[in-house]
């Protein structure tokens, strides 16, 4: 048997193919469209302490080999999440990673504290791309000290694996990565979306109600790959890769630069079965090449 299971902190994942936060809802919508058993982990849509309405329309726009979004983290809030969303998630055989965000450090701590004892949750992913920066929130994602402090506070609330999700919109993602490693994160995930924009030339209005939004999809894969490679060289905790992954080939590139797992994001919209297909293809590939996943991870051959 060729081994494709991985471990983050104390938790084992049957396979390294996850679905990215905000692109898989709370899994319900994918019922019947994908074989959940083939998904290593479902990362939920971001959960916040209080319910959030999300941004005004228009929220999405298609770009060359990519898309912009400014969804604005609409969600029912942590209480309703536990009551309304966890029951379905608990029925799945995938691991469940709850993605958490807040406007203040206290918010992160409070949400994780609420969730820590809820059955069926395997890990937390901390979304440091806070959407409320302009309204006075701190920029967790682009300041190493703050990111470290938030991680350390959340660390005290849970023994479950903590995955810190990093933004690529910084001068040095490895500085932030090292800081949250210091703060006690068990793993990093990267990248979140890149800040982008589009204009309707006819009406002279921005294509998104929030003017700028987040760019995702195949267009950003080369950037994601460079950031993940940089992180993998800079930290000693595992890195979960995200960004433009559409198929096994894309996933392999990320494994080779050092990622322990990957998340499928935008691809879920076009091909809801994408993550499960990648898992099946990965299993076949490992069998054909007679490899374990560990033989692939970090196997990039660099001259000199």
């Amino acid at each position: 048997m060729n081994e494709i299971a991985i471990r983050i902190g104390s938790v084992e994942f049957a396979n390294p193919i996850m679905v990215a936060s905000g692109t898989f809802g709370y899994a319900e919508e994918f019922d019947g469209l994908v074989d959940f058993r083939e998904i290593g982990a479902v990362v939920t849509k971001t959960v916040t302490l209080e319910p959030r309405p999300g941004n005004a329309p228009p929220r999405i726009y298609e770009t060359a080999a990519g898309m912009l979004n400014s969804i604005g983290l609409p969600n029912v809030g942590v209480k309703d999440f536990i009551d309304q969303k966890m029951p379905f998630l608990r029925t799945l055989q995938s691991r469940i990673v709850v993605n958490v965000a807040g406007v203040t450090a206290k918010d992160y701590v409070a949400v994780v504290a609420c969730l820590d004892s809820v059955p069926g949750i395997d890990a937390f992913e901390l979304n440091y791309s806070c959407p409320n920066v302009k309204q006075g929130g701190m920029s967790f994602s682009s300041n190493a000290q703050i990111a470290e402090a938030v991680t350390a506070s959340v660390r005290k609330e849970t023994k479950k694996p903590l995955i810190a999700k990093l933004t690529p919109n910084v001068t040095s993602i490895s500085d932030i990565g090292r800081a949250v490693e210091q703060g006690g994160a068990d793993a990093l995930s990267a990248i979140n979306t890149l800040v982008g924009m589009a204009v309707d030339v006819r009406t002279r209005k921005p294509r998104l109600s929030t003017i700028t939004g987040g760019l995702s999809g195949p267009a950003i894969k080369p950037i994601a790959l460079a950031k993940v490679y940089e992180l993998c060289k800079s930290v000693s905790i595992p890195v979960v890769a995200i960004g433009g992954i559409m198929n096994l080939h894309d996933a392999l590139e990320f494994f080779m630069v050092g990622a322990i797992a990957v998340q499928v994001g935008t691809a879920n919209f076009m091909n809801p079965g994408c993550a499960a297909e990648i898992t099946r293809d990965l299993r076949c590939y490992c069998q054909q090449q007679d490899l374990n996943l560990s033989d692939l991870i970090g196997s990039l051959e660099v001259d000199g």
Partner: protein
Amino acid sequence: MSPDPSIPCKHTVDCRVESIACVAVETFLLTLRAPSIVKAARPGQFVNLSVPRCGEILWRRPFSIHQVDNESGTFSVLFNVVGRGSQALNRVQLGDSLNCLGPLGNRFQIPPGTDELIIVAGGLGIAPFYFLLQDWAQEPFQKIIFYGVASNDRFCRLDDFSRLCSSLHLTTDDGSQGEKGTVIDSLRRHLCIKSERNRFLLTCGPTSMLRAVQRLGAEFQLSGAVSVENRMACGFGACMGCPVKLKNPGAPHKPYALACKDGPVFSLTEIVIDE
């Protein structure tokens, strides 16, 4: 409107292109073989089609289910060539395979006791109503269509529509066929004629028209439903990209419904229609 549990599940399936025909200026009728979609489909629903062989185009493209044929297991969509996606669709050939995700969304529902159904369609907004009229061909109530386009070469399948309805009112912006003007003028004149009938409005088309229909509905105190066509990335509630503003949200933090999942059909009085 919450999804009807009797609607069978959405799924993805590769469909064979059975035919593609030009039915009006820049307007095509594309017929796909997909028995599983046909079986599940209800009037008002849509499919999300993969655009063939064009890497740069990321998203699928949503189209109303225009017609179904249970016997041959085929369904059709009626589409306008407006941009890259529809251009690519227009180049498919017989026998090609298109991946289809559907059926998606909710359905048209007509309140019991309705005895005059008024359909108001602008341009390709006519698309979903063929399926609806097919499905309700046996229903005894009056079916009146107000159908407006820019000029006469844009009308689609007038013969077929006229067979399925009680009366068909045509308008063109340039007066090249039917009345000169918009469907709204024509509709208003109809509504001004007092009637004992229980009228119900159904509308689909450009935003400005939908807003006008909504206003007329309010003015004449008619109920009805509107089918919206928001920009969509996924079409099944996963991306949250297609919010529709609710007039009276259930909770303050839930001001929006999703066009793809909670719609595309909404009560005429339920939503805020803006550009």
